[in-house]
Every structure is written in C-alpha cells, then in structure tokens.
C-alpha cells in the first residue's frame, strides 16, 4: 500500500472489513447480552459518540499533515515512544487476529468441515494470507474493494429474507436492561468500533489527506448500519439471545432463511463468502504488522518478518484451549485492549502532540 496510495473508497472498505469481521463473529451477541432489547438504541448512541470522537481525532491530526500515529509518537516522545507505540499496536493486531482466526476456524469446523483438523484449517488461512502479502500488497486492497460490497449485501439479504420470521415486539421493552446498561455501561460498547485503529495508521497511505474525515465517518456509518441490521435481525428472530449466548452470531440468522422448497437452506453460501472476508482480514492485519515493524525497527528482510508474523499468529491461535477461552479473550480481554489502545492511548498521544505542535507554532509566530 506504500506503492499505491489509497483512494477514498479503498480506504473506507479497508476499515469496514475489519469491523464487519468482528460483527460476524461476536459483537451483536455481546451487545444484546449487555443491553437486551435496547441494543439498537445503544448502537445508535455509541455511533453518535464514536462519530464525535472521530471528528475530534481529525482535529488533532490536522497540524501533522500526512503523519500517522507512529510518526506523531516519535515527535512527542522520540524513538522510545515510537517503539513503544509500535509494540502496543503490533501486540494488539497479533492478539486479535489470532483470537479471531481461531474462533472463525472453530465455527467453520462445526458448519463446513466436521472432520477437518483445526490446525490445518488455521494453517490454510494463514498460509493464504502470507502468499497474498508475499506477492502483492496492492492486490489486498483491490480484492477488498471488490468483496466488501458483496459482504455488505449479504447482511441486507439476511435481514430482508429473515424478516418474515421476525417479531417486532421482541424490540420491547424499549429500554431493555435499563438506562444504566444502555447509556452508562453501554458506552463501553464503543469498542465495537475498535477497527478505527487503522485510522491512526492509514492517514499516511491516503491519496488525499483531506479525505480522512469523510473516510472515517463513512466507515463508521457503514459499520454501524451493518451492526444495527445484524442486531435487529438477531433480536427479532431469537428471544433466547437476550439471556443466553451463541457462537457466530450472524450465522444464526442465515439459518432462518428459506427460499421456497427448492432452496430450503442457504446458510453455507454466506459462510463461503465469509471465508474470503476472514482471509482478507488476516491479510490486512499481517500487512499492517509488517508495515509497523518495518517503519519502526528498520527491518531489512521483509520476507522473514512476514513469516515470523504469520508464525506468531499461528502459534497464538493454537494456545487457546477451548471456545470458552476464545469467547473470554474476544469479548472481555479484547474489549478493554481496544478501549485502551484506540480510545485512550492513541488519542492521548495525539493530544500531547497537538498541544506541543501548537506551542511550537505560536512560538514561531512570536519569533516572526
């Protein structure tokens, strides 16, 4: 992506795919469990908050031109802080990618390959992501731009075709688990927009830096719509979700789709499309880990770095012992990790950098 700068649409879809991946796996389930029937109010609420947060972030980025968070870290605290930021970002990306790929492969095994070896399933995903990264980084972006509209369309299809089974009254009581859980504790659900971490990195890859605000806000709207549709269909279809939990949230909705007697079950078609989604997700993560490490630690042999990144993801995904652990890591550990990195640590660096830059600019003006 260094070779070719990202245009407006490519940048949006790059962020959207990351957020959608998490929505397909867990987010709707977690939000429904937290807020109950008021989940859709919570989503609207956190979308507004995240949009405001992002406008604020854009403001903080404005004096730095096309610099990403790594360059700003260096500006704020020298090379040490840059290294520290890089390590935090790489750990975050490696952690979540290994948990996500483990979770998806376990579900894939249940639905598609009951007799397959989990190790080989994970291996196949990682190997494909390595090959994609090895040959061309631009191809990730192009494939992603082609695939994201299709994935967005699948959710609309799920929503439209499952609506026959839905019961609107399952949105009631309107305040679900109460005002506190919807609005106060519910604020923590902004971690659903953890994919915004790429906004801190992508700025240096944008063709037009002025597009940053538009790219961010459009990605938030796309992701929020996808989340809203998936939560709405789950909530109106499955009353047991309010008190229970499930795996592979959106897949449940696809099982309810029946297109007459000739196409009684089409759930595997969605699963097939999502396989590409997860491949792209993994490719993007590996690409960014490679990019961060190269930028910070001046790695000369990029191939070795690529293999090493893939190896870490592979091993980390095998460390998880069962789906209960996967669930805990994805819904509890990731939640606080995302909140810390995306909504506390990175804005803190930006705020310090912004203040420092303004002081310098004022000083320069006074000197002139």
């Amino acid at each position, binding site marked *: 992506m260094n070779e070719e700068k990202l245009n407006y649409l490519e940048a949006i879809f790059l962020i959207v795919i990351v957020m959608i991946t998490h929505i397909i796996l867990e987010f709707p389930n977690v939000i429904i469990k937290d807020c*109950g*029937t008021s989940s859709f109010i919570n989503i609207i609420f956190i979308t507004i908050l995240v949009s405001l947060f992002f406008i604020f972030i854009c403001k903080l980025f404005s004096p730095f031109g096309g610099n990403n968070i790594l360059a700003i870290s260096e500006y704020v605290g020298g090379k040490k802080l840059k290294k520290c930021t890089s390590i935090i970002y790489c750990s975050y990306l490696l952690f979540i990618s290994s948990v996500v790929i483990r979770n998806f492969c376990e579900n894939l095994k*249940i*639905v598609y*390959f009951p*007799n*397959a*070896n989990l190790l*080989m*399933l994970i*291996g*196949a995903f990682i*190997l*494909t992501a390595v*090959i994609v990264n090895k040959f061309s980084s631009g191809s990730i972006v192009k494939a992603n731009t082609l695939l994201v509209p299709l994935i967005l369309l699948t959710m609309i299809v799920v929503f439209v075709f499952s609506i026959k*089974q839905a*019961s609107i*009254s*399952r949105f*009631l*009581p*309107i*305040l*679900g*688990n*109460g005002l506190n859980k919807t609005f106060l504790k519910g604020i923590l659900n902004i971690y659903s927009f953890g994919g915004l971490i790429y906004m801190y990195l992508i700025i240096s890859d944008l063709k037009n830096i002025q597009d940053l605000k538009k790219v961010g806000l459009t990605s938030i709207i796309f992701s929020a719509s996808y989340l809203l549709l998936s939560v709405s269909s789950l909530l109106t*279809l*499955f*009353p*047991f979700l*309010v*008190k*229970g939990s499930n795996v592979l949230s959106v897949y449940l909705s696809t*099982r*309810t789709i*029946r297109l007459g*007697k000739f196409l*009684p*079950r089409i759930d595997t078609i969605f699963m097939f499309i999502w396989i590409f989604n997860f491949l792209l997700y993994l490719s993007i993560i590996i690409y960014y880990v490679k990019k961060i490490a190269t930028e910070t630690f001046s790695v000369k042999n990029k191939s070795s770095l690529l293999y090493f990144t893939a190896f870490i993801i592979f091993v980390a995904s095998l460390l998880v012992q069962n789906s209960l652990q996967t669930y805990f890591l994805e819904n509890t550990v990731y939640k606080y990790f995302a909140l810390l990195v995306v909504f506390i640590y990175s804005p803190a660096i930006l705020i310090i950098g912004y203040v420092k830059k303004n002081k310098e600019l004022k000083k320069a003006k006074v000197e002139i």
Partner: protein
Amino acid sequence: MKSKKILIIMLLIILILFYISNIRSIYTIDDMAYVIALGLDNGDNNNLELTLQIALHSSSDSKGSSSSQSSSTLTSTVDCNSISEGINYINSYIGKKLNLSYCKVIVISEKLAEKGINDYISTLINDIEVRPYCDVLISKCDTKYFLQNSEPYLEKLSAKYYENEEISEKITGFTQEISLLDFYNDYYDTFKDPVAILGDQNSLSKDNDGKTEKLGLAVFHNGNLVGELDYNETLWHLMVSNKFKNTVLTIPSPFSDSEYISLQISSVKTKKKINIINNTPLINCDVSVSARILSATMNSNYMTKENISEIEDFANSYLKSNITDYLYKTSLVFGADIDSFGSEAVKKFATQEDWDNYNWLGNYSSSFFNVDVNTKLRSSYLILGI
C-alpha cells in the same frame, strides 16, 4: 526462481486441502441414510425410545426390512439415553451414517411431552444437520405407531406428505405449521407459550384404514404439555393470533333449527388491547371477519338486506361465544398465552426488569376477556334463490 517458489507454494496448498478434506472420512450418498422423521417416546426403564423413519434409496430393497411401512421408507426403533446415542445405535446396525439434514418432522409422544421436552428440543436446534424449519408434532398415540402409519394420501413420498401441514393450515385452519424454530423461540419468549401440531389416529375419516391425521394443536406451558386444542379451537386460536388464512365454517341457520349455513372465511383481523388493572390483565379483542355464504337453498334467498343482517348478527354471537370460551380455556385451564397477548402487554413496561417482575405468563391465568366480533358477509352465488 520465482516460478519455482510459486510451484512449491501451490503444492503445499494442494497438500493442505487434501489433508483438510480428510478424504478417508468423506461419505458418499451410498454411505448415508437420510432420516425424514424422528420420533421420541418414553422407553423401557424410564429412558428414551427413539424411532427414525429413514428414506430408502431407489436401489435399496425394502422387502428385507421387517419394519418398513411403505415402499419408500424404513422405520427403526431403539431404546437409548439420548438422541445422539440412539442415532449411534441405529448407525451400528444399518451400516450407514444417518443424516438429519432432510428430517421433515419431529414426532414426540404425548406421554413424553407431559414430562417436558426442552432438553430434546435444545439438542435438536443445536444440531447443525437439523433444519430449523422441520415441524414439531405431538402424537397422542405411540410415536412408533404414528410413524409406521403415516402413510401418505395421494403421495408416494412420505417426506412430501410431511410438508403438507402448511397446505392444511392454508385450506382448513384445522392445524398450524409449527417449526422447531417457532417452538424453541416461543419457549424462550416471555410474551407467549408454545404450541405444537397434534397428531393421532384418523378420527375424521370413516375408512378405518389405520392411517394418522394432523388435527388440532398441543399446548405447552413452562415447557410441559398442558392440554390440547381440537380443530375448532385451533380455528379460534388462528383467528385471535392473526395467523388465520382460510376455512369453511358451518353455523346453525338463524332461520331454521334443522338447517346449517356454510361460510367461507378468508380474512380475519384481530385488534388486541390490554389493560392491567390491579395486576390483572383485561384483554379486549376486536375481531373483524370477512365471509362468503356457500350454502344455498331452493326456496330462500339469504342475500337480502334483512337476511344478511340476521346472518351477520348470528355469526357474530356464534363466533363471540366460541372465541370467549376458547380464551378462558387458554387462561383458566392451560394458563398458557398461546395467542401472544404478551407482545401487546409488554408495551406497558419500560425495562426488562419490570417486565420480568410482572411475570406475564404467570399472571395470564387471571386474565379477563372482552371479545367483540364484527362479521361482514358477501355473496358467492351465481344464481340467487327466490
């Protein structure tokens, strides 16, 4: 050099794909046996009796089986502790892998349903092979008997016969298509209680052919079978729950004691309004019915202004009395809200906690009903009488 690398990578991928596909464990169609109906009953020693109706391949010889009920299926029964164990037992002696992907109906005996069937339903809904749309039927006779005698009328395939509930619901309104997903959802819903299709030996037909019928509904509360609705009560249930499609209803004639008038009812809309007074639900049902007269006599014309009004009034009081009786039966006898009145009542509560504390399904048994019926008659005559 680059092409060599590509070649190595490609070979690696192919090897992995072969490994993933686990080629030794792939089942071809000849290795599989497809279950079209699954039956659960009380077994000996208080365990489960599992009966499976399995479709025979065209190449299979049905004569070899002692238990086959029709040329296209084989019925097999085992005693077991769980559904999965039972399937495994049958796998062992049929020498094929049973597959539930084409299972059309889950038949559960009345005796077992009275004890509670939640665990079995949860097991089945979690099975990736079982379709969420396969029907749930409660059999008044043994499930083994029911499956062995579910020989289709005018059909060669049993699987197709099991799909006929939908058609029956559309034409007669004497039963309702209840899928596994509907049943499971209704069980977990705090607004309503579940119902299932009711099956028995044929009672309507005078042919005495030993065949089975699907007529009426089985009513559940707290996961246990609490009663049943006959085919007339099923009609009132469909009308009140706004799921009614079509039926022919015969009511006594208001003009003569020995005559009956057949009405084709094709549209019913029920508006529900619920007030909670001193923790007791007061339920108002406003039922609008659109009907056509099918009966005709040689010497009278029902389609005069006065006669229409008289038939409408009579139909109103007939429906009102039957629907009111039905509703009190659901509340006082069953204590089960099978008409989803709870989905209206919930509008009066702000949070889940308030709603849970009120315990709608527990309070439903103390409900009062106020039913109002408004019938609109239209003619379906080609030739009017005198």
